């Protein structure tokens, strides 16, 4: 399924960022193989913000992990910016933000952000520190560079995690329920933060969530998945343009679309 | 009369006299019901007797002296090993025939009676410790392995294993160089002896019969000992018993009976211990033993 490039007001290139063709995945489970994904086809154009929703166990995380090359698919092919996943991974690196910030507790916020730079070997140490501080500023964490994760609130940790994923300037940002552990208020602040960041630099975002309101608020298009076997049920362009106004959450279009999506998810 | 007797070491032919006195009913004849209890590398027969846990015990005489010096109310009533079997065991091929041959050789020692006596022997022979290459270890394996040329130890049992391994040995005995001391002595508390002089007498009399029987009937004795402690090797035990005989039966005991003694060497022993075993004492040697319970 090709995402309609003009589904939303947002200007963007129609060049392909991620192309998924006929990807299937089965795990060796206790009682025989588990078919986590079957025949996934999806093309994501560059610089889009795509959400993946679906009930627990429908294969959202698995799909993200296959795209990022963390696990190899059982069948099918994936192109990322025209390369194979492995090649892309080697040359360019994905940005990845996990549910539960997954920072390294023994590193300060700054050291967490510069970790990928250290590992990949970008720039001089001084440049890396400067770049980490830039990103902490971008994520509004100026004063907290020397704090350890345990000294930050959940929302702040999640922002460090995003800064870390952005530090090596990935063209593609994969996020797996990054805000699942936050309370609703902090979560909304993070939404606006994320959109602001996304608007400041060209990046393709694939965002997994099980919150429809989150998906509708953030994305250009929503991929609805269904479980057993994990498959794509529909790709829905978001009807109402996103704005930094929280009231937009209650716009009739949004509500109507929420209802449609709910039905889509609940029907087997 | 129930009596317990504590051996200085695990039950083996070293305690043959007591075992046979019990086996042959010599204790019973005296109206004594004796329980023979084993000691071990870490067990102190003197403290067990002093604390009342056992009635009689046997131990190296220097052990009794050390105990008395710690305030134990002990008295030696018999001395069954008239000479001390402790000394230096050497490999025959090292050709060490007298103490001064140890100069320049490697000697393994560890803390304890044999080392004390060896130091006394070397002093008497005018050999300085600094002229010997000393290492610390109790392992007889070192000798077999030829890591060392000599080691201190008990010459009645340790050389047997080395010889069974095919290496002839020689020994240097402090008792051959003027270091006179008893080895195993029978003791009890002064309080017990004074309260039960007859029991002490009967015990010594029966024990003497046991010793005499044991060394006269060595095959039977080994069989009896091995029957009690089945872990023992009869061949080794027989050889050890044979070697022990010369220490138990000297001219003096041949004349006066096994375990008889006159206490003359107790004072010598204390002098040796003062010089070489760190003994600090004001004890009068004469208070440490009595010959009055010996069978006549």
């Amino acid at each position, binding site marked *: 399924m090709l995402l309609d490039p003009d589904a939303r007001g947002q200007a963007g290139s129609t060049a392909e960022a991620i192309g998924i063709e006929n990807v299937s995945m089965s*795990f*060796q489970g206790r009682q025989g193989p588990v078919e986590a994904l079957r025949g996934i086809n999806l093309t994501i154009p560059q610089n889009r913000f795509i959400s993946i929703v679906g009930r627990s166990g429908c294969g959202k995380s698995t799909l993200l992990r296959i795209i990022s*090359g*963390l*696990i*190899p698919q*059982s069948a099918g092919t994936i192109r990322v910016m025209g390369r194979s996943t*492995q090649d892309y*991974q080697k040359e360019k690196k994905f940005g990845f933000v996990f549910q539960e910030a997954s920072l390294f507790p023994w590193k300060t916020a700054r050291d967490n952000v510069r970790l990928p730079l250290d590992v990949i070997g970008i720039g001089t140490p001084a440049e890396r520190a400067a770049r980490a501080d830039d990103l902490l500023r971008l994520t509004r964490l100026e004063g907290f560079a020397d704090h350890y994760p345990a000294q930050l609130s959940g929302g702040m940790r999640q922002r460090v995690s995003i800064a870390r994923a952005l530090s090596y300037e990935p063209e593609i940002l994969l996020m797996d329920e990054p805000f699942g552990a936050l309370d609703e208020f902090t979560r909304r602040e993070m939404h606006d933060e994320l959109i602001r960041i996304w608007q400041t630099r060209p990046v393709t975002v694939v965002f997994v969530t099980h919150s429809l309101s989150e998906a509708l608020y953030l994305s250009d298009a929503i991929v609805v998945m269904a479980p057993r076997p994990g498959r794509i049920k529909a790709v829905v362009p978001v009807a109402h343009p996103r704005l930094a106004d929280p009231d937009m959450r209650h716009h009739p279009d949004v509500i109507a679309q929420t209802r449609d999506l709910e039905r889509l998810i609940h029907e087997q | 009369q129930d009596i317990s007797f504590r051996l200085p*070491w*695990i039950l*083996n032919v070293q305690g043959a006299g007591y075992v046979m006195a019990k086996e042959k009913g010599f204790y019973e004849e005296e109206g004594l019901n004796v329980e023979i*209890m*084993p*000691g*071990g*590398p*870490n*067990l*102190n027969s003197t*403290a*067990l007797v002093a*604390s009342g*846990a056992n009635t009689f015990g046997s131990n190296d005489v220097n052990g009794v002296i050390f105990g008395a010096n710690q305030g134990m109310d002990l008295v030696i009533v018999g001395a069954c090993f008239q000479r001390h079997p402790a000394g230096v065991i050497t490999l025959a091929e090292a050709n060490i025939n007298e103490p001064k041959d140890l100069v320049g050789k490697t000697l393994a020692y560890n803390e304890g009676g044999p080392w004390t006596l060896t130091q006394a022997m070397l002093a008497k022979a005018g050999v300085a410790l600094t002229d010997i290459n000393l290492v610390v270890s109790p392992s*007889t*394996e070192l000798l*077999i*392995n030829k890591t060392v040329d000599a080691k201190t130890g008990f010459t009645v*049992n*340790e050389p*047997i*294993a*080395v010889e*069974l*391994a*095919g290496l002839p040995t020689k020994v240097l005995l402090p008792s051959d160089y003027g270091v006179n001391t008893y080895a195993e002595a029978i003791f009890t508390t002064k309080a017990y002896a004074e309260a039960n002089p007859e029991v002490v007498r009967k015990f010594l009399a029966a024990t003497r019969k046991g010793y005499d029987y044991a060394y006269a009937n060595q095959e039977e004795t080994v069989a009896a000992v091995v029957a009690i*402690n*089945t*872990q*023992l*090797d009869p061949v*080794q035990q027989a050889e050890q018993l044979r070697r022990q005989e010369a220490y138990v039966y000297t001219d003096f005991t041949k004349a006066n009976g096994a375990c008889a003694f006159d206490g003359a060497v107790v004072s010598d022993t204390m002098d040796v211990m003062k010089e070489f075993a760190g003994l600090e004492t004001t004890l009068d040697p004469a208070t440490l033993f009595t010959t009055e319970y010996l069978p006549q």
Partner: protein
Amino acid sequence: MSSDAMAAPAASSGRGSAALAKLRELGPSIGLFLLVGVIWEASVKLFAVPAYLLPAPSVIGTRMWATRVMLWENLASTMTAAVLGFILGTAIAVGLAIVFLYSRTAERALFPWAITIKTIPILAIAPLLTIWLGFGLAPKVAIAALICFFPTLVNTVKGLRTVDRNALEFMAVIGASKGQTFRHARLFAALPYTFAAAKISSSAAVIGAIVAEFTGANLGIGTLIVTAGYQMDSAMLFAAIITSSLATIVLFYAVILLEKLCLYWPEARMDA
């Protein structure tokens, strides 16, 4: 892609029967045991190492078979003391942990003693223990218990205190007594910790009993070791050590079995 992260997902692992998996798991260790045995045997034979220095496995095996009755008797004595000591030490540790749970003062007063006991070389005081406790089973059991005591105490105290706060509050809300709270909540929360320590201390208990036997006993693996040393019988020394090691491993697995029975609910076990 780095395979470093792949330990957990274990994707597309080859299929294979359970027996095959078991073999793959045990294979390397059995293989290495056999290999070491063969090399040992061969080099003893090749370099004519005298048995006094290092007996060949075949010699040890022959001796173990020849002395099996004696080994068994002595083992029985040692293991009786070890198991009793293990039970006693564990029981005292658990009891004291419960006291600590309800009295911080007792904990503060007694915990340094527990640490101090741990720093004492038991062998050094073993001769005194024989005098204080007499001869026979008692000092063996006491030393085994002493050696088991500390890790179980530390772990059980930790376990009793790690109960989920919500669980405790729920018990409080329904007005449960201390006893009820203990029986329904703390006990089970502590069990996995206690067992983690028990697995460690089971082998310590056997060593404790053997050490106690070094000081003088009629029967036991410790006396076999002493006698073997006295007679310079290396084959017997190895036979005794191997016998007690095997028995210790059996005890270890017995504790694991007991753990499986006691920690019957899913997700209960902590790996030691």
